[in-house]
């Protein structure tokens, strides 16, 4: 091993990222090369200097503030519809899936367990993107969009301003899902449009964010004590989940 090769490996060596065999080769070279030894000392000195620097002192209030905010968020009970418990084994045990699905569907019909109307959500989303029917009220102002729903549907959806987090509101419309009129808010993430469907919840189900995909669309669903929310977009799931988390946090 020559000096150039050794110099390139000194930092990984110090960082503990060099495999054993290469370590041996580097050490062998170091034994006979004072220039490389000097470089190694410099690297180690810098490390010592950095590690002696004080850390930023954490404010006393931080721990209690963080715990308080988490407690507040956790007070909303968790949403885990029973169908996810059914669905996961169905997916993992493909052989049982077909038989199971028939039974599962029957079970839903019989006990009317909460189930996301995936096809309806996708259909409503796609429909909204066709023929310029995306918004009936076009505004980025929550105080324009929220009152617009008054008199058009029998509930008052909360309209959050998420523009500061990179999800500008572009408007809303009345849509039709699960045999009733629902509010649809439209947000934008780069070029991706997000439909957020909001419908009143009557049952007292527990709440947990759920996410899944259908035909290339990602869907995230959650529920609070008044409403069920379905967010759908061709946006990647990570950012759509971030969107849902911001909406929940508001």
């Amino acid at each position, binding site marked *: 091993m020559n000096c150039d090769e050794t110099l390139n490996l000194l*930092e990984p060596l110090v*960082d*503990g990222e060099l495999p054993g065999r290469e370590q041996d080769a580097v050490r062998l070279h170091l034994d006979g090369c004072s220039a490389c030894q000097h470089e190694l000392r410099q690297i180690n000195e810098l490390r010592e200097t*950095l590690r002696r620097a004080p*850390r*930023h002192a954490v404010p006393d209030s*931080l721990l209690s503030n963080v715990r308080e*905010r*988490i407690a507040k968020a956790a007070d909303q009970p968790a949403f885990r519809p029973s169908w996810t418990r059914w669905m996961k084994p169905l997916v993992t045990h493909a052989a049982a899936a077909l038989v199971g699905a028939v039974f599962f569907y029957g079970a839903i019909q019989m006990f009317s367990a909460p189930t996301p109307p995936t096809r309806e959500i996708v259909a409503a989303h796609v429909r909204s993107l066709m023929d310029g029917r995306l918004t009936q009220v076009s505004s980025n102002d929550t105080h324009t969009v929220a009152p617009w729903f008054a008199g058009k549907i029998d509930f008052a959806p909360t309209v959050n301003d998420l523009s500061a987090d990179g999800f500008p509101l572009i408007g809303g419309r009345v849509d039709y899902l699960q045999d009733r009129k629902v509010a649809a808010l439209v947000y934008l993430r780069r070029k991706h449009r997000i439909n957020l469907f909001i419908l009143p919840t009557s049952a007292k189900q527990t709440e947990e964010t759920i996410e899944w995909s259908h035909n290339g669309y990602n869907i995230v669903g959650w529920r609070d004590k008044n409403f069920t929310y379905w967010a759908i977009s061709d946006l990647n799931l990570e950012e759509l989940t971030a969107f849902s988390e911001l909406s929940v946090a508001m």
Partner: protein
Amino acid sequence: MARRRSRAEFERVMLPHLEASYNLAMWLMRHPQDAEDAVQTAYLRAHNGFDRFQGDHAAAWVLKIVRNTCLTSLNRNTDRGKVVSLDAAMSGSEAHRIVPFLHDKQALPDANLIVEQERNLVHDAIRRLPPDYREIVVLREFEEMTYQQIADITEVPVGTVMSRLSRARKALRELLSPDELGGQRNEL
């Protein structure tokens, strides 16, 4: 099957990393109140997404959320024109970016934004690194993250982590060398 994890478990696993989170946030936000806000928001997001935590490295997992929260906040402030983007001060290929930056005294953050009590030559030197070098140095030297963890947190390839770390260290050596600290030492 995933069970809804409890708040107690979240606190047990994630609260020990509050100091690391706050430190990373301070290095990125540079103002205690902004750093605290970012950490609070990040922890709320982490709590909401805790079911997605695979249980392998809690510090890296939460630091990634802290970093993203900080960058979102910084971008937002930049959009509002409150903060001048440090990146905007630099141009050209990455290899050439760091050098003019280090010699551009104008690019130093407003002294008012720095907590006076923590003024320290090493801190000053780290602050003069461009943000994408600064965060890698902080994660490696203070939080002792592996290259792979740093790559995961900062969403760049491991090779980029290594080259940025190396350039940042060279720059820090230059900034912290006796020549650079000149005045004070020569008087002794």
